[in-house]
């Protein structure tokens, strides 16, 4: 494999991990604009663990993700008191606070950045990215995932049917943060260097953008979004100056034509029907009851 292809694949896989970091809170109806902050927490924590204690970089990444998960679970208590646009603003502020924390933490180099000694290559990143996808895809098929859709669509009805809405929202937020943390660890251990500038609002917004582009109704949407977002600029490499402009136009057009994202439940069901399976569990799903 050429270095170029390998480089693209690494970025693609990392984007997949970040996509699911943003997908989880969105699946519960929350927009997290501070995901870069959680990526940073995982990156610094895991780098510190493997640099200072010589822990295996893989364990350090998972550990960093777990700590980020717990941290987000605690942070969720005040942050999730806000709703809608205010929640987005609160997470944005949280991201900014975390970034300035990284800038001022001298143990991990402050503004100068922090070199990471241990290395994780393409294979390691691939294994973890696939695991993140599979965990998400599995959870989405459980009763936890079923209830999460209900929480997203109608909090009041979910509550009446016994779903602890606050707990589901906090868990979605924290699972996303945990994945962000793992992704941050992988990033640091692959590029061997982390610096606070990486964890800016721009980073958060581009991940949100490609997740929305892919669609959040199904578990495949974020994956597709990450693929598009990573590969399209490469495909457009021929027209060097224009490629980002073309890319931006593509995004705007997609958002106008398909505000619900590229893949939705509808397409997924159509595909399942095509392959003869009733993913819904029974019936062709096509018949309508005659009604007078």
């Amino acid at each position, binding site marked *: 494999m050429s270095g170029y292809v390998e480089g693209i694949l690494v970025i693609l896989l990392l984007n997949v991990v970040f996509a699911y970091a943003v997908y989880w809170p969105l699946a519960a109806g929350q927009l997290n604009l501070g995901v870069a902050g959680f990526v940073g927490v995982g990156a610094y924590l895991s780098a510190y663990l493997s640099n200072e204690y010589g822990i295996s970089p893989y364990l350090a990444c998972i550990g960093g993700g777990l700590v980020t998960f717990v941290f987000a679970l605690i942070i969720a208590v005040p942050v999730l008191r806000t709703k809608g646009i205010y929640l987005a603003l609160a997470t944005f502020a949280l991201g900014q606070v975390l970034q300035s924390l990284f800038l001022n933490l001298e143990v991990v180099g402050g503004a100068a950045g922090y070199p990471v000694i241990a290395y994780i290559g393409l294979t390691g990143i691939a294994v973890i990215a696939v695991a993140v996808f599979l965990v998400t895809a599995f959870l989405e098929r459980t009763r936890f995932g*079923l209830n999460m859709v209900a929480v997203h*669509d109608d909090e009041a009805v979910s509550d*009446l049917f016994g779903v602890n809405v606050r707990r589901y929202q906090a868990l979605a937020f924290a699972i996303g943060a945990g994945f962000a943390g793992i992704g941050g660890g992988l990033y640091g251990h692959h590029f061997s260097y982390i610096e606070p500038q990486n964890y800016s609002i721009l980073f958060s917004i581009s991940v949100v953008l490609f997740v929305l582009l892919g669609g959040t109704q199904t578990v495949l949407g974020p994956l597709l979004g990450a693929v598009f977002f990573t590969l399209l600029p490469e495909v457009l490499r021929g027209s060097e100056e224009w490629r980002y402009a073309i890319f931006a136009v593509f995004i705007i057009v997609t958002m106008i034509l398909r505000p619900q994202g590229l893949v939705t439940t509808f397409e997924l069901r159509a595909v399942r029907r095509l392959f003869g399976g009733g993913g819904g*569990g029974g019936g062709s*799903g096509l018949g309508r009851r005659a009604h007078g």
Partner: protein
Amino acid sequence: MADAPVLRLDGVSKSFGGLDVIRNLSFEVARGQRTALIGPNGAGKSTVFNLVSGVYPVTAGRIRVNGQDITDVPSRLRMSRGVSRSFQNIRLVPHLSVLENVLIGQTPRISRLAEVLYPVRLVRNSHWKREAMGALERAGLAELAGSQVDDLPYGVQKQIEVARALLGGADVLLLDEPAAGLNPEETEELRERLRNIADQGTTLVVVEHDMQFVGALCEHVVVLDFGEKIAEGTPAEVRREPRVIEAYLGSDAE
């Protein structure tokens, strides 16, 4: 608590910012009984359901289910305490299929982590799905299991709500206008089905404007007007009450 009424309201009042919507309302529903809660538009029928299911707190009074005071029990725990409901304005989950919406009805019975993490949307023939399919079959909706709910006619969506409400294992089922949007044959099917449900031991409280439906299904009727109980008794008894006739004359329902 075998002799306690399944549902009992004692002096329940509710006001919204000074507007008294329910005033000192008391009634009992005996186990296995089919009760109707009727009254003109705006009488407060849906509000009674909202108070019993905990959507709003009461302003005064007590609500008991199976003899236990649930007035201060959080809404989330009330279905597992025995009251389930459907909604006047359809509240299905639009991003779930018909079958998955019915699966949501089982949530009040789920408590163990293993059940929460059970891949109910992946396993084809689980007992959860079989149970939900059974409920759909009885409602004549089996062939719609995989459909998206918001494509379906209003009356069908109402029946999915009833099926969902049934699976929570509740002792008393509050149904808010379950026959709305149904044609005469479908209304009759629904009535038969509700009768079967009651025969199997579930107590029914039904809000319904169709008086023929009420007369044919219910043994007991509570009549509300401006948030007050103005009559109570068998369908034949309340129909003779002068106050009921008066309340209904000035309104659009018969």
